[in-house]
């Protein structure tokens, strides 16, 4: 991949991939490393990429594979701080600034909602979390997810179902409390 191709890739998919990394990894630093390595790996794996096809799915699968490989590396950190700070102050600022000029009240509501959902998703077991992120965040079809994760479509569906059940319970107050 040449530099300008890489640049195009980053412009096009950077946000999506970063968001995926950010929710997979617990810490910002881990997420940034993962994000960076995903693109570097993409450069390295040049030739195996079908950019005509679906680069986003492919980049997601690279990110997921890298993440699986390094989870162990981060495991020791978790032992020290077993609470995952999914949302940091900086995220809150960013989230706030990214809302497109909504009213103050709406902004706060939106932030609270994002926080609640992110932490509920963050608490899901790893295998369910990846499916949820790929489906809802990255808008991948169940078939694409099955290719990215290397599992049958049926398994994707059953994991999605299981994750939904857990999330519904966890997010009850979000669903009813605000009368969505």
């Amino acid at each position: 991949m040449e530099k300008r191709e890489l640049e195009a890739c980053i412009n096009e998919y950077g946000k999506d991939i970063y968001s995926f990394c950010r929710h997979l990894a617990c810490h910002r630093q881990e997420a940034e490393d993962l994000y960076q390595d995903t693109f570097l790996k993409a450069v390295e794996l040049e030739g195996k990429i079908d950019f005509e096809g679906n680069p986003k799915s492919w980049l997601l699968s690279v990110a997921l594979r890298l993440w699986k490989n390094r989870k162990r590396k981060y495991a020791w950190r978790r032992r020290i701080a077993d609470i995952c700070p999914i949302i940091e102050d900086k995220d809150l600022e960013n989230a706030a600034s990214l809302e497109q000029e909504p009213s103050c009240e709406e902004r706060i509501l939106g932030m609270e909602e994002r926080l609640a959902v992110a932490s509920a998703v963050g608490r899901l077991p790893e295998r369910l979390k990846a499916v949820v992120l790929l489906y809802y965040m990255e808008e991948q079809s169940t078939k694409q997810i099955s290719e990215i994760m290397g599992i049958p479509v049926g398994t994707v569906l059953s994991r999605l179902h299981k994750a939904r059940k857990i999330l519904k319970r966890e997010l009850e107050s979000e669903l009813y409390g605000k009368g969505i």
Partner: protein
Amino acid sequence: MGKEFRKELDELDVLLRRALAPAEGPDERLNQRILNSVDGEEKIGKRERMKAEMEKRKWRRMPAVALTAAILVGAGSLTAYGAYRYLSLKGALEEFGDKGLEEAFFNECATVINETQSYGGYDVTLMGIASGENLTEYARESDGKIRSDRTYVIVAIARSDGSPMPDFGEPGEDSAERDFFVSPLIEGLDPAAYNAVTMKGNYSEMLQDGVVYRLLECDDVEKFADHELYLSVIGGSTFYDRNAYVSDEETGKIHRNSEYNGLNALFRLPIDASKANPEEAERYLGELGSNAGAESSKGAVKIELGDDFAVEAASGNEKGAEAAEYALEFVGNPYEWNGESLTEGCDSSGFTKGVYEHFGVSLPHAAAKQKDLGQEVDGIEDACPGDLIFYDGPSHVAVYIGDNKIVHADTQLGICVSEADFAEIVMIRRILR
């Protein structure tokens, strides 16, 4: 009800989609960093950059003083020469640079660890380990022998106060400040006898931004993965220091000596126990034994007892004589590291343990521990059949059978009779009366 449930799920879907929609992009600087690391026209990946880094390294061999340690530890001087020949192989390290150890580390066969410990004014980070079968493609040829499985470990050492480490300087110059001994250790094996030196260790290091990076390679330790595996880093020394760690004689587990004055980091190596290969481990130890004479009796010779041999019972020592007779029943049975079966295989202390058990005496499975039991006997001339004779450390133990002979489990010969003075006797103990 069913319809309502469906509706809730839809609401959940809406909520999830809205709340999880990618909102935050990466920092622009992060993107810039990625782009900068890829050169304008050439396809340069991380691997190439690593290679460039590797070339900046200074390659160093295990210094001669480590070899002295091998002699002191192993007692078999032949081994030390063997080790020296290997260590003096020129270009071996550069060669593995070429053959893409970086590749091994940055592809999937390595475990990245990044654990830091701070002791004695240093921060030591165990960065990663690569070992096992999937590294065989990186194997090298040396001494005309293909040596396939090796373990590679990378550690970074920095001063805790942040000041830079001194440059390496010239060989021979006083260098205690940047001397480190990095070695894997294995649960149940005496660290003084089984470390990077005896496991044909070799290292290279480089200094960058005041941090020393060291790449250690030695014989593959994965085969021992059914035991706890450690990585030790000792400061101010280029060989193993007996004071740095404590080996629990009961369990074989190795711990830091908290009293130790200086750097004595100890990491657990996260190698999956399923990678263990006990047969290979045993064969390897046998090989080390025959070379280094590490655990075993060096150069013990098997003696066939004549038909007329009989254990002579000294008065008051009938039980000991019985034990010696009993021990002789197992001559011809195999040696097995860590084994405790008199018939299926045992090591030296497993053998004495098994024999004594028959007489209602329970011994720990470690020569070093057995030597503290019972009464000391002054010399071989005062020894009675059934006494335990200790050698080498002690890491080896035998049952005396009289007439200057012993029966023991030898790594090479299995359970056999040898001369009592085949090696220097460090202790004789009378436990049975």
